[in-house]
């Protein structure tokens, strides 16, 4: 394993590997690693744990610039000190690299702040497979990093190419990112969390569609009772208690910011309640299943998961399937998952202003020989059925690549990209369609 400490060392590692014809795979987060993007038996691992500087936090222009090894656990308190917060994934692991999470297009909790799929990723510095360093968007220049007077936050370009999109979702196959600029938002001064229970997912996805087109909630997430219990319960007994919740539940938070925060919360409270009552639902501000559950959930929605063991691994092992769906397709796809795997945990997160849903199907099981392969196969079969119904696997890990890289013209177009930025194919070889 190689441990670079700066960009020059990353360049040297890549140039040496290129000369030797050796594969490299980047690793930025602490274990556990769920999707396998950072595991590659045909490559040496480049671990970014020593590149862990928070380079800048800017309250006025609302962003943070961090090296690849900076984790959520380290970054969140530093932002909070300056009255800022990240648009976080749901229960992001404390040891997860904030840059890697954004690069992987992990679903975020506040869709109204997400204008585009790479959001909250703004700009990055990367080293391509050629060994060349490159900075995206307005971080490109003019001039060196030190000379440029820009805040280096504009995502697009430079020029008429959107280089950031070549790196986003690429699993390190195009370039290794050394630092990233992440959009930050104002830390709310007041908030109210709602529990909205329903018998089926469709009612809640429709409600989310209504609320988000009006930009009403901050955090918004829909879960079935299986994942609600597993995520918020701290042990087996609590999980059992929390399974007493309705089959589906939406957690949604309205917030007030610097000025007259309570007034904003009251106004937006009214919007949530009105939208709920129109479809026969109740927006509750309490959930009596466990004492102090409301505070616990609000705290967990606004921080990373600092528990020692990931909630997904409580039984020992897990397999998950991630897909994107247009709002008009979401309920059909969720129903298919429910019918095929009635015991699966399901999380549905509205994204990009509510114009899409990230659907996550989670299977948790004991870590016994053969079990992982068995459930992997189960999810792959499910994925095929979901793909037939219009599911989009935009983050294809493992065998999912078999489902998504079938159209020769677009695969050829993607390979042309790879050839430009990694002509010798040394970056995470064998992943995606490369």
């Amino acid at each position: 394993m190689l441990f670079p400490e700066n960009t020059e060392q990353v360049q040297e590692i890549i140039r040496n590997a290129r000369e030797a014809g050796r594969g490299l795979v980047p690793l930025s987060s602490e274990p556990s690693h769920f999707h396998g993007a950072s595991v590659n038996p045909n490559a040496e691992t480049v671990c970014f744990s020593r590149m862990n500087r928070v380079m800048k936090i800017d309250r006025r222009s609302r962003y943070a610039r961090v090296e690849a090894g900076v984790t959520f656990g380290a970054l969140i308190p530093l932002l909070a000190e300056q009255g800022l917060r990240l648009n976080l994934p749901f229960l992001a692991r404390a040891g997860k690299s904030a840059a890697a999470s954004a690069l992987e297009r992990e679903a975020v909790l506040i869709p109204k702040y997400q204008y585009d799929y790479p959001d909250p990723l703004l700009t990055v510095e990367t080293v391509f497979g050629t060994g060349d360093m490159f900075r995206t968007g307005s971080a490109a220049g003019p001039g060196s990093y030190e000379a440029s007077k820009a805040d280096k936050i504009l995502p697009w370009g430079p020029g008429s190419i959107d280089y950031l999109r070549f790196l986003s979702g690429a699993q390190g196959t195009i370039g290794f990112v050394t630092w990233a600029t992440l959009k930050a938002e104002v830390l709310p001064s007041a908030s109210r969390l709602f529990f909205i229970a329903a018998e089926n997912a469709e009612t809640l996805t429709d409600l989310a569609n209504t609320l988000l087109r009006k930009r009403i909630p901050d955090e918004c997430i829909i879960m079935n009772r299986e994942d609600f219990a597993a995520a918020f319960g701290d042990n087996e007994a609590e999980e059992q208690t929390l399974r007493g919740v309705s089959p589906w539940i939406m957690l949604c938070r309205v917030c007030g910011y610097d000025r007259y925060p309570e007034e904003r919360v009251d106004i937006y409270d009214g919007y949530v309640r009105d939208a709920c009552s129109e479809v026969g639902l109740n927006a509750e501000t309490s959930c009596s299943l466990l004492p102090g559950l409301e505070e616990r959930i609000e705290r967990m929605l606004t921080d990373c998961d600092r528990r020692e063991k990931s909630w997904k691994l409580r039984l020992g092992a897990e397999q998950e399937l991630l897909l994107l769906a247009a709002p008009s397709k979401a309920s059909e796809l969720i129903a298919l998952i429910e019918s095929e795997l009635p015991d699966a945990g399901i999380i549905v997160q509205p994204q990009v202003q509510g114009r899409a849903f990230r659907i996550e199907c989670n299977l948790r099981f004991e870590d016994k020989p053969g079990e992982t392969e068995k459930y992997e196969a189960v999810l792959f079969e499910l994925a095929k059925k979901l793909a037939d119904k219009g599911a989009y696997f935009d983050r294809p890990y493992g065998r999912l690549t078999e489902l998504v890289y079938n159209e020769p013209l677009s695969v050829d177009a993607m390979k042309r990209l790879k050839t430009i930025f990694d002509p010798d194919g040394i970056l995470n070889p064998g992943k995606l369609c490369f």
Partner: protein
Amino acid sequence: MSFSEQVYQELAAVVGERNISREEYVLAGNRAKTPEIPFAHPSPEAIVLPGSTEEVAEIVRICNRCGIKYVAVVTGCIPSAYATGEDTIIIHLKRMNRIVEINDKDRYALIEPGVRHVQLYPEVRKRGLSYAAAAVGPGGSPLVTYSCTGGDNHVQYGTSRPSRYLLGVELVTPEGEILRTGSLQTDSGWFCPESPGPSLRGVVRGYSGNSGKVGIVTKCAIALDMCKGPAEIRREGITPHHKMIMDSDCSRVYVFNYENIQDVCDAIIALGENEIGATVQKYFYLPLTLMMTNSANEFWEKWDTYKEVMSMPLVVHLAAHSVREREYEEKILFDIINETHGTRIPREYEQWWEDHMDYFMIVSRLQSVLRLGGSWLPIKTGAESVQHMCDVGESIGEFIHDFTNTGKIFNAPENYQIIPMEYGHFASIELLFMWDRFDPDGFKNMAEFCAASRESDLKKHYHASPIMGYGKRAEKQGVLYSNCHIWAQLIYEAYNPYIGQ
């Protein structure tokens, strides 16, 4: 091979005789010079009007086989929309003008290149939806704005740039293949712009579009936002002296004037932090005066007064879901304006905005800007943080007076606009200047002023003048921008084997 009768007949066989022409009067209309450029474009050999993606692909393949160059055109508003050499045809996409789908639930519109803002905007508004129509006027093509060119717009404060709203794209590659990007790559619909893994969407456009260098976009989906306000707005009078009035207790427009740009900056940032307002912009006073007057004579009568009253106007459109929310927003707005030393302009001026709400939709009065009869050009046109853009705006005074004081350009030194995006996360800047197109030195003066502006940005290391072009043409600037000209050239060569020919 040069353009021949045989090539003409092959093209005619694809689109039909009615949809191809080489009549002199038709060709003349497609080589007309634009006012700001004092030379005529070469004549195209023919104008071809395809009606479908398949026809575009077939035309491209014929051109490749016969060595004919082509330029794809919709509105012809920009200088690059014309033939630049011999043996070139114009592929005019105006027949492809269908709104294929407006998907209310998934909030996107699927459009062809020939669809105009004036066609699309009312249709989406009827459904309670909206989109960021670029400040190009009602005749502009949304597809071109979103996929091929720039696209700053007047409502991007509460939304964003088209770069954020371009979803699935269908394009005919320079090799004549039909490529679909994003979720279309796996037949999963038009809703997602990202490819599985690294996204081909990055090739389609960056900060600006690449004006067809990697293919002709024949369809694209653009994301829609909810529209706050009535589905239809009331009109009084006859165009161009019409009023468009939004009767809504939830909507208000306020205009404040400032004495310095750093105060404007503070106001924009504070508004954004509190997510107040649907539209916020520091507008430019010259186009504003032109839009607010009805003739050149009236402009000259009022210019001295208007430029004082609205020397640095901050326009704020509040659009809330309820009266209570609007009042809450007003309370915060006035607090911020007081703290940042803004003053509300007299009601007689402010009323103009209430009477012309179409400005916030499809900018229908923009053509008034041309009334003085000179040439005009927007420069800088970059974007970055609000603070950075305001610093850039402040620096304009350091070089513009050499040009305004000598009469080389119109004397309006504060004539730049700053429009925030995404509630103040970013902002764009545009410095609009005018010059006398009948002045023999006018073109030279224009070029000198552009160079002075760019030089100022580079010297100060301001990210305000986007890098344009590729390859050798962009080399001088590209070395200052992470050598992006080299990468851009590699990308264009990879996707367009005919580039540079």
